[in-house]
């Protein structure tokens, strides 16, 4: 995924997931929000995860 997004690319991505009613102002918000989310993803040290590291919540049917 590219690091630099344009408003037009975000508009296309939004339409693909059904966000078809966003105004230009909304799309600018979505662009900022998506850039912030990508920055957060980059801050996650996922390289420290090994194959056997499980998610924090694993379904345990016997507890229910």
């Amino acid at each position, binding site marked *: 995924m590219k690091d630099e997004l344009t408003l037009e690319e975000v508009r296309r*991505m*939004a339409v693909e*997931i*059904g*966000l*078809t*009613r*966003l*105004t230009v*102002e*909304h799309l600018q*918000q*979505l662009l*900022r*929000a*998506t850039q*912030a*989310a990508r920055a*957060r*993803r980059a*801050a*996650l*040290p*996922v390289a*420290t*995860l090994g194959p056997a*590291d*499980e*998610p*924090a*919540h694993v379904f345990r049917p016997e*507890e*229910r």
Partner: protein
Amino acid sequence: MTDLAWLTVAEAAGLLRGRKLSPVEYARALIDRIERHDGTLNGFLRFTPEIALEDARRAEAEIARGAWRGPLHGVPYGLKDIIDYAGLPTTAHSKILKDNVAAADAQVAAKLKAAGGVFMGKLSTHEFAIGGPSFDLPWPPARNPWNRDHFCGGSSSGSGAATAAGFLPAAIGTDTGGSVRNPASMCGVVGIKPTYGLVSRRGVLPLAFSLDHVGPLTRTVRDNALMLDLIAGVDPLDPGSSDRAAGSSAAELDRGVKGLRIGVIRHFYTRDMQADPEMAAGIDAAAKKLAGLGAKVSEIETAPLGVYNACNRTILTSEGFAIHEKWLRERPQDYGAFARERLMAGAFVRAADYVNATRLRRKLADSFHALFSGIDVAVTASSLDPPCRIDDPHAIEHTYARQARAPFNVTGGPALSVPAGFSKAGLPLAMQIVGKPFTEALVYRVAQAYEQATRWDARHPALSNQAPPRPWKGAA
């Protein structure tokens, strides 16, 4: 008699049980105070004096015939407006849900009703517990009782403001990335995010299922423990509810801190982010005070604050977007700008990134909890800055992310914000006390020792001395 506005739950309980105070007289005094001052504070989104007086009359009759239900019997409280109270709208402070009338009580509301509490109303929140403080919603944002021109924190903003203003001795809020502890910090009150699963979330509008917590805000540590004990407990209808029996949070309150090992996570507010100097000095002074009370205080290290915050936010926005996707498709214009932008951050998070954040969460929690082999509790910052002006969106955006609360939504253990003094401008400072899961009693014990040694709880905002803010013209 003490000014009824500043009675604590524990003090009120003694007076009410001994029939030295009438629940109706108490409720009327607070109703009068709310009517005089909330027009410029906006702590309440929906004020319900008629329900309060009905509850108070019932409590009076029950106490008179010797049927005292416990410490909340006849005591006023309020609920953040994402918590269902049967027959009233749960709006989440949003146009989207302004007519969303709750069919049943949330579990926490049912417990407070059963405890004989006097329900005063629904309290302001940031829209959907994420978007605020906003001026583009059907209701205005709550303001800080210490200075109405300043932010009161959020998202449980009305819960913090109303408690600090002496409108209520206790309120319930929710916390997904710090939303009980933020208003507690900004308003100079006590707020806890209990262990995940200790308090039922049933009937509470979710923001992010795996990070959502329900917790009380009060003016004293003792009241906070009393309130938590009233709302904690297993709920088979909440899939996240812990089946571990809730103990007595107040059991160890007065044992002091002598010999306890306290680890200060100083790098959160000095290296990972640099706190405002007054805030950092306040937390350092608090750690020194605890050492003076006999605790063994040392500095500890955990993962960088930015890693915890990125983990929290990746999970939060992914789960939050899943909840809001339908409305964002159909009614994006009906959200305020803050909520819309913050929720849309989850739109394009890849499934692998969400899963990896939850895998990282386990590692962060495991390594954080391992620190407790050498300490009993940890202390760190809550907010990194004193409250900024509420009408300065740049300052709001700047300070919104400058906090050390989200790590403990990631790790899941108890985290409590307690007042730690005041800035030179007279605005509250605060620190956090953090435990490993299910050690609420120990967290409260440390907080109580600090509160009793400093008595920041004895200071109250002077509402009548402040000029009112500009009138609210509405946005809906």
